[in-house]
């Protein structure tokens, strides 16, 4: 990919704009309320953008269009549980958090149960969020390393370093205001990329034709049942049932018990502003995710008329071309190119046929296209097999590179720089919020709770800044060692969250709905559930989204059981 002077100018200007804006907006009172909660002064629209910016990481904009290209639009179902979760949270936890004036979600658990339950859940949060944030840092570096040849380790350090500067300087307020600006730039750039993908389609092929072709190739599978061969496939990741049920539990856990999100809406000036931010998020999240997937669909349509690469990761391709498999690889790629040409002819004929009423011809061409599609996928699989053979430790999945390869090969100068900038901005938006939340939990749930020395407001403020820097460095260090995760890092982040979210959510559900359960019972139940979740995960018998359900249900069941058994145990001892 060629990165021109104009691209560099756009990239550097955009990043400097964000950092300057973050530092400019960072003036706040030098105490914990100011640093972690922006003095609880934010209006609902800032909360909305902050929630969305925290959830959407760089991989959202890198991987999601690629996912639509390879697997179709069914990924949108993953978000179907989110609006329901927003409503439940507005009824339950949000008013409590505001009434108790907590800094972290886990403070509530001490008031409801005891200190050990609060400490356990806060620890689980720090563990999962700390590691997954470290993994998130590498997403942009790994892609930029492949496409532009940038040094992976230096990109990590540069990205992490710049981010730490404004996050540490301004705390929650800087995070919220920079996310606003980031949001506008990100969606404007995605819209421009989408416009170009449609605009570059051959003459006479419009938006509807592009959709028809994608639909006939199975890419517009927005709703899927998860039923295959007459029974429900529990390992199928994205279908309407796993989306609504699994997605509901995941969203409840993420928005209700993950401090990186709770910390965002606690900055609101009232319960009303928090609720409005969350509810509008419930309204816009699914359509926005649909739009990002649609960008991928248009990229797919575009590649039906122009030569698509057999493999999208340039760096890995270079490794194969320098290996002993280079000759065989070139032969397979040549086969792919021939098939692409044949497929292009079919698509052109199909686009013309779709404008007629000749259903027989449409059906014939559709079957032909599906066969060619299947053959293309088979060839792509053998190409990936060569990548795996040439570089055994690598992940041959190239989904992360599809969208950026399209950007680099076909979009005009300047826009490439802007798209690279949005990778940084999206990464910063979510990582900045994570760092702020990690620092707040460390300060509020551990330092203030377990330190015998009483700190002044100014000392607390300074310690909080040091914790933000500390977690920033921790994440960059994790990123330096996580290179081998390769392209599977998106899933790694999601799975890591699902390993702990269910249990944490279960503790909150017990706190809210099972009034007779006490601290000891829920503490034991949380540990038992976590063991079961880890056991199910390692047994690999179910898709990761269901782990959230198992964890939460496990805590509810074991809490009831242990609370019921405690009097019997006491009686037996007597």
């Amino acid at each position, binding site marked *: 990919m060629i990165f021109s002077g104009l691209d560099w100018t756009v990239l550097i200007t955009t990043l400097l704009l964000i950092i300057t804006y973050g530092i400019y907006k960072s003036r706040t009172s030098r105490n914990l309320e100011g640093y972690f909660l922006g003095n609880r002064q934010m209006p609902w629209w800032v909360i909305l953008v902050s929630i969305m910016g925290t959830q959407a990481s760089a991989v959202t904009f890198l991987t999601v269009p690629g996912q639509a290209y390879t697997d179709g639009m069914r990924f949108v179902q993953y978000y179907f549980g989110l609006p329901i979760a927003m409503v439940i949270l507005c009824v339950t936890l949000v008013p409590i958090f505001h009434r108790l004036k907590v800094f972290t979600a886990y403070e509530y658990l001490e008031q409801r149960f005891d200190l050990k339950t609060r400490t356990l859940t806060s620890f689980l949060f720090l563990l999962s969020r700390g590691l997954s944030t470290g993994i998130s840092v590498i997403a942009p570096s790994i892609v930029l390393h492949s496409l532009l040849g940038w040094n992976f380790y230096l990109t990590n350090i540069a990205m992490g370093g710049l981010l730490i500067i404004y996050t540490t300087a301004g705390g929650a307020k800087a995070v919220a205001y920079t996310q606003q600006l980031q949001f506008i730039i990100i969606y404007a750039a995605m819209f421009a990329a989408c416009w170009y993908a449609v605009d570059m389609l051959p003459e006479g092929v419009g938006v509807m034709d592009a959709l028809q072709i994608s639909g006939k190739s199975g890419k517009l599978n*927005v709703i*899927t049942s998860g039923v295959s061969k007459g029974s429900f496939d529990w390992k199928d990741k994205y279908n309407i049932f796993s989306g609504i049920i699994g997605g509901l539990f995941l969203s409840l856990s993420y928005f209700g018990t993950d401090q990186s999100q709770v910390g965002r809406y606690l900055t609101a000036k009232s319960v*009303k502003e928090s*609720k*409005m931010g969350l*509810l509008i998020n419930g309204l816009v999240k699914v359509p926005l995710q649909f739009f990002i997937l649609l960008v991928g669909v248009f990229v797919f349509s575009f590649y039906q008329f122009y030569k698509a690469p057999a493999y999208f990761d340039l760096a890995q391709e270079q490794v194969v071309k320098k290996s002993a498999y280079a000759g065989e690889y070139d032969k397979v790629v040549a086969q792919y190119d021939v098939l692409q040409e044949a497929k292009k002819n079919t698509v052109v004929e199909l686009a013309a046929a779709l404008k007629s009423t000749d259903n027989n011809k449409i059906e014939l061409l559709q079957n032909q296209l599906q066969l060619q599609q299947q053959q293309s996928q088979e060839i792509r699989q053998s190409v990936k097999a060569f990548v795996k053979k040439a570089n055994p430790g690598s992940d041959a999945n190239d989904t992360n590179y599809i969208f950026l390869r399209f950007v680099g090969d076909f979009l005009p100068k300047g826009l490439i720089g802007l798209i690279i900038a949005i990778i940084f901005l999206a990464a910063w938006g979510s990582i900045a919020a994570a760092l702020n939340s990690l620092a707040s939990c460390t300060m509020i749930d551990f330092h203030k709770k377990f330190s015998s020395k009483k700190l002044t407001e100014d000392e607390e403020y300074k310690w909080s800044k040091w914790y933000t820097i500390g977690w920033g460095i921790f994440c960059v260090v994790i990123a330096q060692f996580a290179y081998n995760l390769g392209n599977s890092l998106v899933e790694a982040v999601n799975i890591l969250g699902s390993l702990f979210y269910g249990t944490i959510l279960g503790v909150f559900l017990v706190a809210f709905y099972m009034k007779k359960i006490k601290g000891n019972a829920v503490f034991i139940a949380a540990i038992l559930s976590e063991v079961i979740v880890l056991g199910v995960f390692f047994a690999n018998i179910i898709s990761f989204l269901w782990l959230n359900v198992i964890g939460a249900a496990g805590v509810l069941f074991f809490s009831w059981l242990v609370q019921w058994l405690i009097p019997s145990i006491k009686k037996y001892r007597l």
Partner: protein
Amino acid sequence: MSSNNNDEGKPPLFKTWKGWYLVVILFLVVLIVVFYFFTKHFS
């Protein structure tokens, strides 16, 4: 621990928060129905 409208202020556009909750859920239902027909139409 149920929500208290006095503490939380009157929601915009509706008399109570229930109006907003209903809008969010109904919008989701409409989206799913639209997506279903979208999938069927283009498949």
